[in-house]
C-alpha cells in the first residue's frame, strides 16, 4: 500500500472513520444473520439426517392383524428387497402429571430384539429393562416431570407402576414437549403388567430405495401377507430419511435465510448511500485525479477497493459471531428436532457462501454509484459545488399551513433526489421487514388463538373400544359440572387416489402425517371451524363430508361437489364433499355426520369449567365398563402448537430487529452526509443572521420529514409483505395462509424507532454543524 493512490484510500477511510464504522457495522450485522442462518441450516440438516439415519428407521410399518409370529418374521426377512425386519407393538396409554393427563406411547420391544430397525441410543440404564421397569425417551423427562416411578394407565383403565430404569434418545421422534406425549420403552413382560396381551402387530421393514420403491415393496408385502391369511390393516411409510420436522425446518430456515439476505442487501444500500455521499464530497478530487492522469478505471478501482475494504472488515468482524450465533441457533433447533449434534464443524462452503455474499453484495450494489462517480467528467467534477437545488422544479415547495422551517426542510430533502430515494428505500425496506416480521408473528399467534377458540370443548377422551354414542350420552347426563358431552368416532383412514389407497405417511409418533375419518353430530355445538369453501355438515348428510385443509392437500385439493374416496379399516368409502374447513391443531381429517341409526363412538369431547370433570367422566364410564385410552385437554393442543412455532416466531422477531437496526444506521448515514455536504451553506445562513439553533432546527426538521415519510411508506409496504410471508408460513405450518394481522405494537415501535433514529442521527450532525464557526463553514471544501 505504498503507492499514493492506496495511501489516499487508507487515509480517506481513516478520515471518514465514523461513516466507515457505520458501514462495517451495518454489513457485519447482516452477515452475522446470514452466517448464523447458513450455519444453523447446514449443521442442523446434516445432523438431522445423520441422527435420523442412525436410528435405522423403518421404511414401512405394516399393521398385521393377529400379530407377527417368529416364523412369519423369518419369512419376511427373506422376502426380496427387504434388508431387515422386526415385529413390535405400540400402545397408546396415558400418564397423569400434576392434574393433567398426557398421552403416553409405549413402544413394546422383545428383550432379544437385535435393535437393527427403529433403534435408539441408551443414554442411561440398560436395555432391556426388568418387567417392572421402562426406559423413557429423554425429551419426555421434562414433560413427565422427571419421574423415578411412573404410573401408566393402559387403555382399559388398568394402571401399573414402572420404575424408570433408564433414558434413551430416539432421534426419529419429535420432542415430547411438542407432541405433549411421553415415550416409554418396555418389554412384552412389562406390557403384561398393564393387563394387555403382547401381540407384535407392527411389522417394521427396511427397504432400500426411494419412496416409490418403499411403497412398492410395502404393497407387495401387504399383498403377500394378506394372501397368507394375515390381514394388513394399514401400511405406514413416512418419507425416507426425513425427520418428522425436517421439512418444516428446511423451509423455514430457507425463509429466514431470505430475510437475512434482505438485511444484507439493505446493508449494501447503506454502503452505497454512504459511499455515494463520501464520493459527492470527493467529486472535485475525482476531477483532480483525472487531470493528473487517472483513468475512469483507476478511479473506479480505487473506490471499489474502498468498498472491498469495508466488506472485508465486516466479514472478518462477522465471521466469528455468525458461527457462534449459528451454533446457538443450531442448539435451539436441535432441541426442536430432538437431535444430538455430534459434529459442529461448519463446512467450508458456508464460509465461502458467506464470503461471496459479504463481498459480492456490497460490491454489486455499490458498483452503480461508484461507476457513476468515477465516470464524472473532469469538467463537472471540477465545477462541483456540493448539494444544489433541483433544476427541474420551477416553483419552491411550500407546505400548506406548515411553518417556513418545515417547507425549507422539505426543499432541502428534495435537493438530492437520488440519495433521498435511496434513504427512503432503506427506511422502507427496513421498516417493512420489521413490521412485516412482527405482523407475521402476531398473525401466527392470532391464528392459533382464534383457531383453538373454535373448539368449544375442553377435553377429549378417546376410548379403548367403540361404544354406542347414545349410551355414552345417557351415561354422562348426570355428571356435575359437565356442560356438554359429544360422542364422536375417530378412525384412521387412508386417502384413495386413482383407485389406489395411499400409503399412510404417519410417523411412529402417530401424530405427524396422520389422516383420520371423524364422524360426529352434524350440528356439533363444540366445534365451529371456519368454512373456506362450501358448507358445514347438515343433518341428513350421510354420505356428505367436510375436509380440513390438511386432508384437502392429501386428497389432491378436491372441490365441493366432488367425490372423495377413503380406505377405512380395510373398506373403501366414497363420500361427497360438501365443504372445506380451516382447522388449527389437528391432523388431516375428513368429517362426516354420524349415522343416527348406528351411532358408534371411539371418543367423547367434554365442555366443562371444573377441572375435575374429566376424572368424574372417566369414573362414570369405567363403572359402565367403558375405558379411556387417552385424555387430552385442549390446553395441551395449544401448548403443542406453541412449542412448534415459538422458536420461529422468536427468530422472526430477532431478524425484524436486525432490519430495524440496519435501517436506522442507513438513516444516520444519509443524514450525516446531507449535513456535511451543506456545511458551507450553514455558514452562509449564519452570515445572514441565522442562529446556531436555527441551523440545528432546520436539519432536525429535515431528518424528521425524511424519517416520517420513510415510516409511512414502510408501514404501507409492510402490509402486502406481511400477507406474503404469512401466506408462506401459514401454508407450510397449517396448510392455509395466515390471516393478515397488523401488529399495532410493531407499527408504533417502527414509527417511534424511525423518528428516534432520524432525530438522533440529525441531532449529532446538527450539533456538529452548529458548532462550526462561520469562518470554518465558509472555508469548507
Amino acid at each position, binding site marked *: 500500500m505504498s503507492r499514493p493512490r492506496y495511501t489516499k484510500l487508507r487515509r480517506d477511510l481513516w478520515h471518514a472513520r465514523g461513516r466507515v464504522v457505520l458501514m462495517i457495522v451495518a454489513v457485519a450485522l447482516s452477515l452475522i444473520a446470514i452466517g448464523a442462518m447458513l450455519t444453523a441450516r447446514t449443521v442442523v440438516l446434516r445432523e438431522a439426517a445423520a441422527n435420523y439415519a442412525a436410528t435405522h428407521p423403518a421404511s414401512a410399518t405394516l399393521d398385521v392383524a393377529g400379530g407377527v409370529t417368529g416364523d412369519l418374521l423369518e419369512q419376511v426377512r427373506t422376502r426380496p428387497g427387504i434388508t431387515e425386519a422386526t415385529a413390535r407393538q405400540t400402545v397408546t396409554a396415558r400418564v397423569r402429571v400434576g392434574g393433567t393427563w398426557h398421552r403416553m406411547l409405549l413402544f413394546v420391544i422383545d428383550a432379544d430384539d437385535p435393535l437393527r430397525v427403529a433403534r435408539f441410543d441408551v443414554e442411561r440404564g440398560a436395555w432391556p429393562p426388568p418387567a417392572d421397569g421402562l426406559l423413557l425417551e429423554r425429551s419426555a423427562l421434562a414433560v413427565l416431570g422427571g419421574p423415578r416411578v411412573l404410573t401408566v394407565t393402559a387403555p382399559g383403565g388398568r394402571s401399573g407402576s414402572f420404575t424408570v430404569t433408564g433414558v434413551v434418545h430416539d432421534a426419529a421422534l419429535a420432542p415430547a414437549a411438542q407432541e405433549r406425549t411421553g415415550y416409554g420403552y418396555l418389554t412384552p413382560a412389562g406390557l403384561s403388567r398393564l393387563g394387555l396381551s403382547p401381540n407384535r402387530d407392527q411389522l417394521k421393514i427396511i427397504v432400500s430405495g426411494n419412496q416409490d420403491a418403499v411403497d412398492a415393496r410395502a404393497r407387495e408385502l401387504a399383498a403377500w401377507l394378506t394372501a397368507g391369511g394375515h390381514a394388513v390393516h394399514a401400511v405406514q411409510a413416512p418419507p425416507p430419511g426425513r425427520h418428522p420436522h425436517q421439512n418444516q425446518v428446511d423451509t423455514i430456515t430457507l425463509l429466514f435465510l431470505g430475510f437475512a439476505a434482505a438485511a444484507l442487501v439493505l446493508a449494501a444500500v447503506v454502503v452505497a448511500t454512504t459511499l455515494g455521499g463520501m464520493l459527492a464530497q470527493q467529486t472535485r478530487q475525482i476531477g483532480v485525479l483525472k487531470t*493528473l492522469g487517472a483513468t475512469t478505471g483507476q478511479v473506479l478501482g480505487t473506490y471499489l477497493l474502498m468498498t472491498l475494504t469495508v466488506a472485508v472488515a465486516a466479514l472478518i468482524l462477522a465471521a466469528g459471531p455468525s458461527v457462534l450465533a449459528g451454533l446457538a441457533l443450531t442448539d435451539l433447533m436441535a432441541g426442536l428436532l430432538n437431535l444430538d449434534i455430534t459434529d459442529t464443524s461448519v463446512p467450508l462452503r458456508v464460509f465461502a457462501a458467506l464470503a461471496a455474499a459479504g463481498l459480492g453484495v456490497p460490491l454489486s450494489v455499490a458498483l452503480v454509484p461508484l461507476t457513476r462517480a468515477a465516470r464524472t467528467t473532469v469538467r463537472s467534477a471540477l465545477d462541483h459545488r456540493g448539494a444544489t437545488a433541483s433544476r427541474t422544479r420551477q416553483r419552491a415547495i411550500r407546505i400548506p399551513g406548515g411553518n417556513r422551517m418545515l417547507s425549507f426542510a422539505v426543499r432541502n430533502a428534495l435537493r438530492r433526489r437520488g440519495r433521498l430515494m435511496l434513504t427512503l428505500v432503506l427506511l422502507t425496506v427496513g421498516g417493512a421487514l420489521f413490521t412485516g416480521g412482527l405482523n407475521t408473528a402476531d398473525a401466527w399467534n392470532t391464528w392459533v388463538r382464534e383457531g383453538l377458540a373454535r373448539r368449544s370443548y375442553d377435553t377429549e377422551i378417546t376410548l379403548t373400544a367403540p361404544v354406542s354414542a347414545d349410551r355414552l350420552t345417557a351415561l354422562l347426563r348426570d355428571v356435575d359440572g359437565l356442560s356438554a358431552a359429544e360422542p364422536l368416532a375417530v378412525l384412521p383412514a387412508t386417502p384413495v387416489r386413482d383407485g389406489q389407497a395411499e400409503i399412510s405417511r404417519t410417523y411412529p409418533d402417530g401424530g405427524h402425517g396422520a389422516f383420520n375419518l371423524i364422524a360426529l353430530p352434524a350440528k356439533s355445538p363444540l366445534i365451529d371451524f371456519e368454512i373456506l369453501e362450501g358448507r358445514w355438515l347438515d343433518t341428513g348428510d350421510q354420505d356428505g363430508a367436510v375436509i380440513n385443509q390438511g386432508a384437502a392437500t392429501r386428497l389432491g385439493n378436491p372441490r365441493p361437489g366432488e367425490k372423495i374416496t377413503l380406505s377405512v379399516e380395510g373398506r373403501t368409502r366414497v363420500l361427497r364433499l360438501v365443504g372445506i374447513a380451516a382447522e388449527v391443531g389437528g391432523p388431516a381429517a375428513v368429517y362426516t355426520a354420524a349415522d343416527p341409526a348406528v351411532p358408534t363412538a371411539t371418543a367423547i369431547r367434554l365442555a366443562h369449567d371444573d377441572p375435575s370433570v374429566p376424572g368424574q367422566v372417566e369414573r362414570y364410564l369405567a363403572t359402565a365398563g367403558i375405558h379411556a385410552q387417552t385424555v387430552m385437554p385442549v390446553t395441551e393442543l395449544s401448548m403443542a402448537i406453541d412449542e412448534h412455532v415459538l422458536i420461529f416466531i422468536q427468530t422472526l422477531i430477532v431478524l425484524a430487529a436486525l432490519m430495524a437496526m440496519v435501517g436506522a444506521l442507513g438513516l444516520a448515514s444519509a443524514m450525516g452526509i446531507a449535513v456535511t455536504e451543506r456545511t458551507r451553506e450553514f455558514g452562509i445562513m449564519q452570515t445572514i443572521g441565522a442562529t446556531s439553533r436555527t441551523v440545528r432546527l432546520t436539519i432536525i426538521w429535515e431528518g424528521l420529514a425524511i424519517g416520517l415519510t420513510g415510516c409511512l411508506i414502510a408501514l404501507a409496504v409492510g402490509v402486502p409483505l406481511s400477507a406474503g410471508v404469512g401466506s408462506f408460513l401459514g401454508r407450510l405450518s397449517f396448510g392455509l395462509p395466515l390471516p393478515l394481522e397488523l401488529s399495532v405494537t410493531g407499527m408504533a415501535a417502527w414509527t417511534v424507532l424511525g423518528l428516534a433514529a432520524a432525530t438522533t442521527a440529525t441531532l449529532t450532525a446538527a450539533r456538529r454543524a452548529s458548532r462550526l464557526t462561520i469562518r470554518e463553514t465558509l472555508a469548507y471544501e
Partner: protein
Amino acid sequence: MTADVITLNGVTKTYPTPAGDFLALDKTDLAVVPGEFVAVTGRSGSGKSTLLNLLAGIDRPTSGQIQVAGTDVHLLPESRLSSWRGRTIGMVFQFFQLLPTLTVAENVMLPMDFCATYPPRLRRPRAMELLERVGIAEQADKLPATLSGGQQQRAAIARALSNDPPVLLADEPTGNLDSATAEVIWELFAAQAASGTAVVAVTHERDLGRWAHRRIDLADGRIATGATR
C-alpha cells in the same frame, strides 16, 4: 523553425444555458511553440478558462480542431483522455487542489503512479527533485493543510511537472496569493518555459511582461490581441 506544440484552428465552443446557447469561444486560432510562456488575460466570461479546458481535453470544442503535442485532442475518445492528459498536460489550479489526505511528496508522486511514467523506486526521488526545484523539499512529508498558500502552489507546480509534460496549463495560479508570492510562482513558470515546456497561464494580472513571452487578451470569446507571435 520549431513545430507548434499547441495548435487551435477555428475553435468554437458554445454552452447551453437556460437563456439559450452561450458562445464562450468563437472561431479561435492559436499556436504555441515549445518553451513559450503565454499569458491569457481577459474579463470574467471572456473565454479564458474555456480555452484552457479545451487545451486540457476537459471540454470538447463545438467545432474546430485542437492539436496538442501532436495529438488531435478533439478526436481522442473519453477513455484515452485521462492518460493522455496525465502524460501531456500539467495542470495548476487557482486553489491548488492538492489532495488533502496525501503528503506533499505523495501528491507529487500521484501522477507518476497513475501514468506509470516512472518505476515505483524512482518516484520518490523524482518527487524530491521536483520539490527541491520549486524550493519546498523540506515540506515533502507534510500534509498540504499545514503549508502556506504559496508553498501549496509550488507543490501543485511540482505535481504538474512530475510526468515531464510538454505543456503546462495554469488557471489563475496566483489568484489566491499575495503579490510577492505570486512573483515567485511566475518565476517558476518562466524557468519551466525556459527549459522547453510550453506554458499557458490564465491570469487577471496584465503586467506579466517580465515573465511571459506573449500575452493573449480575450474578449467575448475572441482573441482581441496576441493571436500571433
